[in-house]
């Protein structure tokens, strides 16, 4: 809530280049040495409709959207619908202004394009600005762009104006333009940028907000700017994944697209197929034949993978699936984030689940845990699922490039070579004992079709050590127990590692806890900072391992606090439920803070939620933010 940070919101219509302009703006800020974090909001529509991106930047770490924002660049929506009397969508043309005012902080800056937006369409803009101390700069960005180039360049003009108002010069923007444009386009854009900058620099400035100072360590030296989807894709590539099969679906499409664009150059294969059942089945087929393979989807597409997922479990074929969650049920709100697929991902497909599920909390974790997912899948012969959401998928963060300077993983995990196969156990008939009962770790030896001496049958039916269909009860129990042992081994391996996927934050001896999973981690951490600053004693644990569940770590955390607030973006408190299921106790100590309106939490909502539940004099059991809901602990 400090103003040593900039939260710049660029608003307009879908299809108006808001996203790419914001990406470049974020990059520019990164190059000035700031930490950067973005938050996207867009409709399920191709052209037109209210969309914005927030770029938050500061000299200290930023790891969440902020509470509101402090700089609005309102561009027009060139594809706004013409309202008619009964239009329930109201005046779309004015939305780049009207829809954004509620979240603008006191004293904030507004730049709007008078070429497309009419102050008259906004109720009481002047009064509200006076009340809230907003500084309003109406500028004819469209006019300027049209005059000196073309109308679409008004985004450039807006950036120029922004720079002028924040006391930045245009150098870093021109550098960026220079890298991605050339010729006339470049020249015109640079001209427009400079003209806007000059014009606005010459105006009287009433506001105080300037570009934040200081340098953040991650941005100090060779920083790179990456989205969660990008990190998943790069994690997969470095894990040695060279095959992807998919079918587009928001927000999964991002990962699929990045993989598809990189694989051909790396001698890999990307297949866009007829549906998600096929996509998952292809990944299984490719993996079976000896390739590190992945697939993935979102919501309904992942639902279609339910049956192949079980086939991978039963045949013990390693695959990695990405589930990029969006608001459900059903088609729901395709471009809005939610964390309501947790139970679906854990349990879909008949029979007892036998899979690994990771939900990275940050862009870095998205890279790390995708690599870990491949490792687990190929070492333990099971499907590993990386769960992200529309929030993590699209948000970008600054990471020093050394982070990526590591060895790729060239192996296929636990497989035998032909020489090893020669030595391995075979049935008297010559068939390889692919599924022998005895391995302690649960991982039985694996061969690849085409290897001499390795033939076996992979079957989704229960099977003998050679893979043949069998209904014998003893064999059944031996195979079920062995497959279950693999999960225990995964847990033991992860628990034994130096760095856990679970991220603790805040004072170790804190009195209260905040428990969260996946993409809410950064927001919870910001809330922890504020709460401790306000005199509370709170720490957080961001959980990524969902199956096998990190019982020891979570139990230790819960044991160490009085009470705990579980923060998640869904309506039925799924992660609290999972924790209750896995630990079987603590019910009296776990309250839930839920949000499911399609917007991710702001840190302030977590702060308020916490205060309304625990440790605050003002607490009122029922209180919760307007758009959040509290479910008190059992017996509370």
């Amino acid at each position, binding site marked *: 809530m400090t103003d040593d940070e900039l939260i710049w919101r660029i608003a307009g219509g879908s299809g108006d280049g808001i996203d790419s302009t914001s990406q470049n703006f974020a990059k520019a800020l990164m190059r000035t040495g700031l930490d950067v974090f973005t938050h996207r909001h867009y409709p399920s529509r191709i052209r037109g409709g209210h969309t914005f991106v927030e770029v938050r930047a500061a000299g200290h770490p930023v790891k969440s959207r902020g509470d509101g924002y402090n700089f609005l660049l309102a561009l027009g929506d060139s594809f706004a619908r013409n309202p008619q009397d009964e239009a329930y969508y109201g005046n779309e043309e004015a939305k780049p202004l009207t829809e954004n005012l509620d979240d603008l902080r006191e004293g904030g800056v507004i730049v709007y394009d008078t070429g497309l937006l009419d102050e008259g369409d906004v109720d009481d803009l002047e009064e509200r600005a006076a009340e809230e101390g907003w500084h309003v700069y109406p500028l004819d960005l469209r006019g300027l762009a049209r005059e000196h180039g073309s109308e679409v360049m008004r985004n450039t003009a807006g950036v120029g104006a922004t720079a002028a108002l924040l006391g930045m010069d245009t150098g870093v923007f021109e550098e960026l333009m220079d890298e991605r444009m050339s010729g006339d386009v470049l020249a015109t854009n640079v001209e427009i940028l400079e003209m806007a900058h000059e014009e606005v620099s010459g105006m009287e400035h009433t506001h105080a907000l300037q570009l934040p100072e200081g340098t953040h360590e991650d941005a100090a030296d060779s920083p790179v700017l990456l989205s969660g989807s990008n990190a998943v894709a790069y994690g997969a590539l470095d894990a040695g994944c060279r095959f992807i099969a998919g079918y587009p679906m928001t927000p999964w499409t991002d990962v699929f697209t990045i993989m598809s664009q990189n694989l051909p150059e790396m001698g890999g294969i990307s297949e866009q197929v007829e549906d998600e*059942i096929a996509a998952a089945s292809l990944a299984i087929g490719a993996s079976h034949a000896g390739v590190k393979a992945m697939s993935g989807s979102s919501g309904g597409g992942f639902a279609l993978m339910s049956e192949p997922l079980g086939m991978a479990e039963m045949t013990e074929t390693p695959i990695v699936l990405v589930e990029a969650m969006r608001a459900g049920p059903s088609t729901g709100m395709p471009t809005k984030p939610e964390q309501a697929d947790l139970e679906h991902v854990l349990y879909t497909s008949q029979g007892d689940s036998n899979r690994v599920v990771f939900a990275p909390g940050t862009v870095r974790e998205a890279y790390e845990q995708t690599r870990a997912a491949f490792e687990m899948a190929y070492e333990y012969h099971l499907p590993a699922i990386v769960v992200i959401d529309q929030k993590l998928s699209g948000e970008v963060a600054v990471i020093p490039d050394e982070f990526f300077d590591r060895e790729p993983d060239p192996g296929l995990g636990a497989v035998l070579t032909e020489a090893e196969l020669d030595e391995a156990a075979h049935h008297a*008939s010559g068939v390889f004992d692919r599924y022998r009962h005895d391995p302690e770790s649960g991982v039985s030896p694996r061969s690849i079709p085409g290897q001499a001496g390795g033939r076996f049958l992979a079957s989704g039916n229960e099977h003998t050590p050679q893979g043949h269909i069998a209904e014998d009860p003893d064999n059944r129990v031996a195979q079920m127990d062995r497959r279950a042992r693999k999960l225990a081994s995964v847990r033991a391996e992860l628990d034994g590692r130096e760095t856990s996927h679970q991220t603790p934050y805040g004072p170790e001896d804190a009195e209260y806890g905040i428990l969260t999973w996946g993409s809410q981690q950064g927001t919870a951490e910001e809330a922890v900072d504020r709460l401790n600053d306000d005199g509370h004693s709170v720490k957080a644990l961001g959980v990524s391992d969902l199956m096998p569940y990190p019982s020891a770590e979570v139990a230790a955390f819960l044991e160490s606090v009085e009470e705990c607030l579980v923060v998640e973006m869904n309506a039925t408190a799924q992660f609290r439920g999972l924790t209750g299921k896995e630990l079987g106790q603590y019910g009296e100590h776990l309250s839930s803070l839920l949000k499911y309106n399609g917007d991710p939490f702001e840190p302030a909502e977590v702060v308020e939620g916490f205060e309304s539940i625990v440790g605050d004099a003002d607490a009122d059991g029922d209180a919760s933010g307007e758009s959040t809901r509290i479910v008190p602990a059992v017996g509370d």
Partner: protein
Amino acid sequence: MSQSTNVFGAIGDAQEREEGIDREEFTPGIEPQATWCPGCGDFGVLKALKGAMPEVGRTPEEVLLVTGIGCSGKLSSYFDSYGFHSIHGRALPVARAAKLANPGLEVIAAGGDGDGYGIGGNHFTHTARENHDMTYIVFNNEIFGLTKGQTSPTSPKGHESKTQPHGSAKDPVRPLSMALSAGASYVARTAAVNPQQATEILAEAIEHDGFAHVDFLTQCPTWNKDAKQYVPYTDVQQSEEYDFDVHDRREAARMMHETEDALYEGTVLTGRYFVEEGRRSYGAEKAATGEAPETPLAERYFDPDYEWERSYDLLDRHR
């Protein structure tokens, strides 16, 4: 010596053999007798497939046989090679990816009429249009065998079953016509009662460079017709009565339509229906566009010298 022989020693093995291949190599040491009912046509497919292997010169461990679920799906239990007994209707997507991953494998997919034309119908038409280099054998017994005799997509109109007590109101699917308009480059029908032709057709289909679809009439004496009802059969290539050019799409279409109708009138026509030569298989096509590697992807993981690409080298765009 190609690299592949280092890693996948079984592949190409046959070529180096002097003694040739014995069909009995494909008879498993375990499960010597299948669980199919006495008189089941599925035995005929197994026999024909074993018989085709010496002709195409493939040994057990260079073959990947992917099956669906059904009585037919058990083929992979009784044919000794690498096998994948997948789920109902999904043999094709599993199989075609395996072929893309390792083109050195001989990939064969098989399943029932319910498996392939019912629940798996979409994969059938899309795999055909993509022209993957593989063979797809559909055990067409005009019935759901394993689930105990329900109407299948190839059951004739009027067919009575437990789930259609008054008889099916649906026209059966036309598997050959569908394969053709979907884009298969080899389409044939054979029958379990016709072992010689079946073996030949399977060998041809396997050798065909592209998607080869074989509709294999397999009697199901338990729930549907017995072998007698598929006799006499006519080989359209042998018979004087039928004259068409298997390389001509239109003539093929006409002959297919006639064949499909005839079956339900009690006339069993079999043979090759369409053979398209020279069309690139999907793998080749994809490699040609630059979206697939030249050497089998599967070999890479066993190659200690391969220089793995790194995301670190992609970072420039993010700076």
